[in-house]
C-alpha cells in the first residue's frame, strides 16, 4: 500500500533449528530405518529446497510400531492418572521452551508464515498438552462413568496444514486417557512430528507410548487396516475419510473423522464492519486458506455487499505475501505442488463458470508454490467454487436477503464444520447459531481455537469431537462393571 514506509526484511533466524539430513521412524523409543529401506524427500514449499530425507514406512514397519504400542499399553494405562499427567506437563513445558525452534521448523516444512507458527500454532500446541494433562487424573469426573477405560492402541493419521497442532490434538487426549499411539504425519510435513519424538525422549516418556511412522498414503492405509489397532483417528480430506470408514467398518475399531468443510461466514447489515472485514480475512487467508474450517464462503447481506467488498478489497491490498520466515509476512506458500495444482484448477473453473475473479496486485516469488489471495464475486450456490472445498486462499462471495435465506444457504452444503455470524444484535446471533448445522459457530470472530472448546463436524465434515471434555470421549470406553470400584 504505502511506498514511503517500506518494511525492511525481518527474517527469523533459521539457525535456531538443526535439521538432520535424514530421519528414520520413531518406534519403541528409538529412531530406526524403514524395513524396505525406502526414503522420500521433504521440501520447503517456499523455496523447493530439500530439507531432509525421511524413511518411508511399509506394512512391516507399521506392524512393528503397533506391537511396540501394544506392549507399552499395559504399563502406561496402569499408571495413575496423576503420573501420566506429569509426562504431559513435561512435554508441554518442553514445547514451550523449544517453541521458537519448532515454529521455525514448522514454517520451513509447511510454508506458513512464522507469524502464525509463532503466535498461533505453537501456543495452541503447548496449551493443548497442558489442558489434557489436567484431565489425566480427573477422568472419573469427566461424565463417562467412574473409572472409564482407555481403548488401547490408537492409530492416528494427520494432515499437513497444522502438522504439530494436529499431532497435539491427537496425542494429548490419547495419552491423558491412557492409550498408546502410532501416529502418521503427512507426507509433505513430517519434520515437526519427528522433532516431537525427540521431545518425548527428552521428557522421559516410556518407550512405545508414542510411535511416529512416516510415509505417504500407503503407510496411512497400512496403519488404519492393522488388526491390532483399537481406535482410528483421522484428520484430512473427505475422500480419504470415506475410504477409512469403509476399511474399519465391521471391525471393533472406534473411529473419529475430522474432514473437509465449506464454512459460511455470514455478515448481516448491522455487523461491526471493520472487524467483520478482519474476520473474513482471518477466516479465509489464515494459513493460506488451508484450513478445514476456513470461512471459504462469504454470505453477505445484499444491502451492504458493495460497501463490504470495497472495504475487503482495500484490506486485501495490504496483505504481505512472501518469505514465510519474514516476521512481517501475512501470506506464505501453498504446502505442495499438488495442492497448488488443485487450487489453480478450481479457481480456473470458477472463472470458467462465470464468477468474477479478483486478486490484489501481488508479486509472487519465482520459486516455490504460491497462490495470490483471490476473491470470487457474482457467485451462486450452483458454482463449483461455492460447493467444493478448495483448501486455498480463495473466497467465494454470495449474497442473501433475509436471515432465513442466510441460514438456508449456509446449510446448503454436504459439509458442516464451521460457520461465522457477524451482527451487533445478540438475539440474532443466538437465533441463527441455533439453526446452523455446523460443529463450530463463531460469532463476531472466526478461526479462534482453544483446547477447552470441542471441535468437529456434521455430515461429510466427519464425526467425533476433539478438544474439551468431549475430546476425551473418543479415547475412552464407557466404564464396564469390572471397571467399577
Amino acid at each position, binding site marked *: *500500500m*504505502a*511506498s*514511503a*514506509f*517500506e*518494511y*525492511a*526484511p*525481518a527474517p527469523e533466524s533459521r539457525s535456531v533449528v538443526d535439521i538432520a539430513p535424514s530421519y528414520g521412524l520413531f518406534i519403541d523409543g528409538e529412531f530406526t530405518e524403514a524395513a524396505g529401506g525406502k526414503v522420500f524427500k521433504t521440501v520447503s514449499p517456499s523455496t523447493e529446497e530439500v530439507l531432509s530425507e525421511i524413511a518411508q514406512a511399509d506394512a512391516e514397519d507399521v506392524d512393528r510400531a503397533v506391537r511396540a504400542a501394544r506392549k507399552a499399553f499395559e504399563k502406561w494405562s496402569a499408571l495413575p492418572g496423576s503420573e501420566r499427567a506429569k509426562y504431559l506437563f513435561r512435554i508441554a513445558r518442553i514445547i514451550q521452551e523449544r517453541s521458537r525452534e519448532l515454529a521455525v521448523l514448522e514454517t520451513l516444512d509447511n510454508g506458513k508464515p512464522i*507469524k502464525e507458527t509463532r*503466535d498461533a500454532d505453537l501456543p495452541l500446541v503447548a496449551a493443548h498438552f497442558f489442558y489434557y494433562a489436567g484431565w489425566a487424573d480427573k477422568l472419573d469426573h469427566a461424565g463417562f462413568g467412574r473409572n472409564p477405560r482407555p481403548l488401547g492402541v490408537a492409530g492416528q493419521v494427520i494432515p499437513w496444514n497444522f502438522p504439530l497442532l494436529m499431532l497435539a490434538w491427537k496425542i494429548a487426549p490419547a495419552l491423558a486417557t491412557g492409550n498408546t499411539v502410532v501416529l502418521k504425519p503427512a507426507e509433505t510435513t513430517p519434520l515437526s512430528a519427528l522433532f516431537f519424538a525427540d521431545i518425548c525422549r527428552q521428557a522421559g516418556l516410556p518407550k512405545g507410548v508414542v510411535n511416529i511412522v512416516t510415509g505417504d498414503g500407503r503407510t496411512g492405509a497400512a496403519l488404519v487396516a492393522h488388526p491390532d489397532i483399537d481406535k482410528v483417528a483421522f484428520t484430512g480430506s473427505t475422500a480419504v475419510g470415506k475410504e477409512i470408514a469403509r476399511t474399519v467398518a465391521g471391525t471393533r475399531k472406534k473411529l473419529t473423522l475430522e474432514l473437509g468443510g465449506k464454512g459460511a461466514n455470514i455478515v448481516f447489515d*448491522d*455487523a*461491526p*464492519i*471493520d*472487524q467483520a472485514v*478482519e*474476520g473474513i480475512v482471518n477466516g479465509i487467508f489464515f494459513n493460506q486458506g488451508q484450513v478445514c474450517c476456513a470461512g471459504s464462503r462469504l454470505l453477505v447481506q445484499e444491502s*451492504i455487499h458493495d*460497501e*463490504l467488498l*470495497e*472495504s475487503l478489497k482495500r484490506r486485501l491490498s*495490504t496483505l504481505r505475501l512472501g518469505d514465510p520466515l519474514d*516476521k*512481517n509476512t501475512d501470506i506464505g506458500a501453498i504446502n505442495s505442488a499438488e495442492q497448488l495444482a488443485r487450487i489453480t484448477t478450481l479457481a480456473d473453473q470458477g472463472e470458467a463458470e462465470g464468477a468474477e475473479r479478483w486478486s490484489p496486485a501481488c508479486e509472487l516469488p519465482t520459486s516455490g508454490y504460491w497462490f495470490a489471495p483471490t476473491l470470487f464475486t457474482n457467485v451462486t450456490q450452483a458454482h463449483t467454487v461455492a460447493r467444493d472445498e478448495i483448501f486455498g486462499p480463495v473466497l467465494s462471495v454470495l449474497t442473501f436477503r433475509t436471515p432465513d435465506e442466510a441460514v438456508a444457504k449456509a446449510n446448503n452444503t454436504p459439509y458442516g464444520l464451521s460457520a461465522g455470524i457477524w451482527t*451487533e444484535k445478540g438475539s440474532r446471533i443466538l437465533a441463527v447459531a441455533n439453526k446452523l448445522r455446523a460443529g463450530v459457530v463463531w460469532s*463476531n*470472530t472466526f478461526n479462534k481455537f482453544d483446547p477447552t472448546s470441542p471441535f468437529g463436524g456434521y455430515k461429510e465434515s466427519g464425526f467425533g469431537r476433539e478438544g474439551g471434555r468431549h475430546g476425551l470421549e473418543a479415547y475412552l470406553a464407557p466404564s464396564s462393571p469390572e471397571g467399577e470400584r
Partner: protein
Amino acid sequence: MYSRYARRYARLVTMPTNAPSPTAERVGGTPSAHALADVTTSDSTLRRFLHGLPGVDAVGLEARAASLGTRSIKTTAKAYAIDLAISMVDLTTLEGADTPGKVRALGAKAVHPDPTDRTTPSTAAVCVYPDMVATAKAAVAGSGVKVASVATAFPAGRAALDVKLADVREAVAAGADEVDMVIDRGAFLAGKYLKVYDEIVAVREVCGTSARLKVIFETGELSTYDNIRRASWLGMLAGADFIKTSTGKVAVNATPANTLLMLEAVRDFRTQTGVQVGVKPAGGIRTSKDAIKFLVLVNETVGEDWLDNHWFRFGASSLLNDLLMQRQKLATGRYSGPDYVTVD
C-alpha cells in the same frame, strides 16, 4: 458504508478521494463545506446519524491493533520511522508549574532535538497552555516548528462557552498555529451531541484561518469504542482538522486500539466527503517501540497520505528522548543512555 444515512449522503460526494483537494485542507473552510452537512441540522438527525454508524466489536478491534503491533520494523525501516516519529511529535508541557524558562527550553529542544546531531529533524510543534504561547512563539521563531495551544478550559472543559472561547481567542491572538480543544464530555455522555457539535463549530470559527483545530475527545472518559467512533465523526462533521485521543491527564490515554479506530474514522470520512482529517494520539506513548507501532497502524490503515506531520502527530513529552536515544543507537551501533540526550 456507514448506515442508511451515511450511505444516502455518500451519493452526494463528488470530490476525489485520494489526493486532498485544496478545499479538503480546510483551514478557514466552513464545516458545511462537505457532503454530510445536513446530518447536523438538528439534534435528532445528528443523533440518528451517529447511532447509525456501524458498531465496533471491542475484541476484534483490539486483536487487530495487537496483531499490527507484532510487525517487526528493522534497519532502514526503523531509521525512517524514528525520524518520521520525531517530526510528528507535539512536544508538550502542560503543568501548573510551567514557566517561561521551561517553555523556552522546550522550544529550543523542539527546533534542535539532538544537539549532537543537527541532521535530526525538528519536532512538529510545541504544545503549551495559552498564556505560554507568546513565549513559545519566540522560542521557535524562524524554525518550522509550530506552536500548539490547549484551550477551552483544558483539560476538564468544564467552563461556560464564552470562557472557553476567550481562552481560544487568547491563544490565537498570541500566535498559536494550532489549537487543541477539549470536547464537553459531560454533554456527549448525556447525549447532547448538538451541544458538543455547536461548541466545536464555535471554536472553529474563533480559530479562523490562522489556526488548525485539534479536537480532543478524552477517549478514556468516553470509555466505549462506539462512543469514540461517534465522537470522531462528530468532531469531523464540526470541522476538526485533527481528532485527538486524550489530554494525557486521565488514567487511559492513547492506545493502539483507540487510535486504530480513529484512523478508520478519518479514512471513512475522507471516502465519503473528500475531506482529510489528521489524527493525534496523545498521552502514554513513551518509547520508540510504541511510536513505531502507531506508525504501523497509520501505514496499514490509512496509508502514506497520513505519513506526514501535517496529518499525524504524537502528543508526548518523554517520547522524544527515547526516539533520540534510538536514533543515536542506529547511527553509532551503541546505546548512549539518558545523559546523552537533553533533560528539559
